[in-house]
């Protein structure tokens, strides 16, 4: 397991849990990162607040890779602008592309995401596009220079789990980049299941932010993700289409 690295854009990570930082107190970030064992944390870019002196960066432990998202972008052009601003903020060249036209379901605009991926990959960004799981789009993202593909499991913030399971499995089977399941994972068991399927990593935010005890839930997700990864590497046992198969020796006794 020690050699089992997650590689994104040439960068190696031991943790397969990408942590969101939205919707909870900055004061909980350090504990969340520690208990999640996370090495990557997502951030958003917003208009700076003149009155607020506190910066979220002060709460993120050293050595953690920052993954700014382009939330708020409605098209490729806006996503590119946000990504450039994020890089100018001086915390590396990772970017999670998030482009949404619709604020009710917050579904990613796959076509605009492909365009933004191509532009930003050409500018040297490590591009991690959030997308609706569609094999053709995933292939276009690969060709556009994406460093990973981040399909949604169910609508953002819904905690509904692997609604798109079949289609994520197709991406895992066909796409030669890390498939990182993002959005909608609400429980550790769902994260574990996605990892058993062969997902490279899990991104979660709301599942933690809305949990009763955030750091404890971060720890639960960490264990679930590690368990799922081990199960995937071990190779799951087969499922019978019908009937049963005894686990005990079939030599009879107590009868003739």
């Amino acid at each position, binding site marked *: 397991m020690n050699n089992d690295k997650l590689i994104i854009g040439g960068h190696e990570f031991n943790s397969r849990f990408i942590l969101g930082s939205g919707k909870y107190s900055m004061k909980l970030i350090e504990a969340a990162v520690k208990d999640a064992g996370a090495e990557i944390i997502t951030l*958003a870019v917003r208009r700076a607040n003149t009155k607020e002196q506190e910066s979220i960066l002060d709460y993120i432990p050293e050595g953690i890779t920052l993954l700014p998202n382009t939330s708020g972008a409605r098209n490729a052009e806006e996503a590119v602008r946000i990504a450039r601003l994020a890089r100018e903020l001086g915390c590396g060249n990772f970017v999670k592309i998030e482009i949404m036209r619709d604020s009710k379901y917050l579904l990613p605009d796959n076509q605009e995401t492909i365009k933004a991926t191509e532009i930003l990959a050409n500018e040297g960004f490590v591009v991690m596009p959030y997308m609706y799981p569609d094999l053709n789009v995933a292939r276009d993202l690969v060709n556009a220079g994406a460093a990973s593909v981040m399909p949604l499991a169910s609508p953002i913030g819904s905690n509904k789990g692997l609604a798109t399971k079949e289609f994520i499995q197709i991406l895992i089977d066909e796409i030669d980049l890390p498939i990182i399941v993002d959005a909608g994972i609400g429980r550790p068991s769902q994260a574990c299941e996605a990892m058993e399927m062969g997902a490279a990593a899990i991104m979660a935010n709301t599942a933690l932010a809305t949990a009763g005890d955030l750091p404890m839930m971060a720890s639960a997700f960490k264990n679930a993700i590690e368990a799922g990864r081990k199960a995937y590497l071990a190779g799951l046992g087969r499922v019978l289409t019908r009937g049963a198969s005894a686990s005990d020796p079939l030599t009879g006794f107590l009868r003739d």
Partner: protein
Amino acid sequence: MVKINGEKLDVAGKTIAEYLATTKYDPKRIAVERNGDIVPKAQYPDTVLEDGDSVEVVSFVGGG
């Protein structure tokens, strides 16, 4: 007038560095975009805001 983060301000003629000095922004924790283009930090003292400019001053916040 110069539009900064959506607000019209009477700062035309000032450099970005001069404008920032009148705010509480932490220069280390912001990025500036002027008319759609990034302004690198080193250019803040030389970039003069002009009437009609549109400027965005951004920083990181929590997000997923």
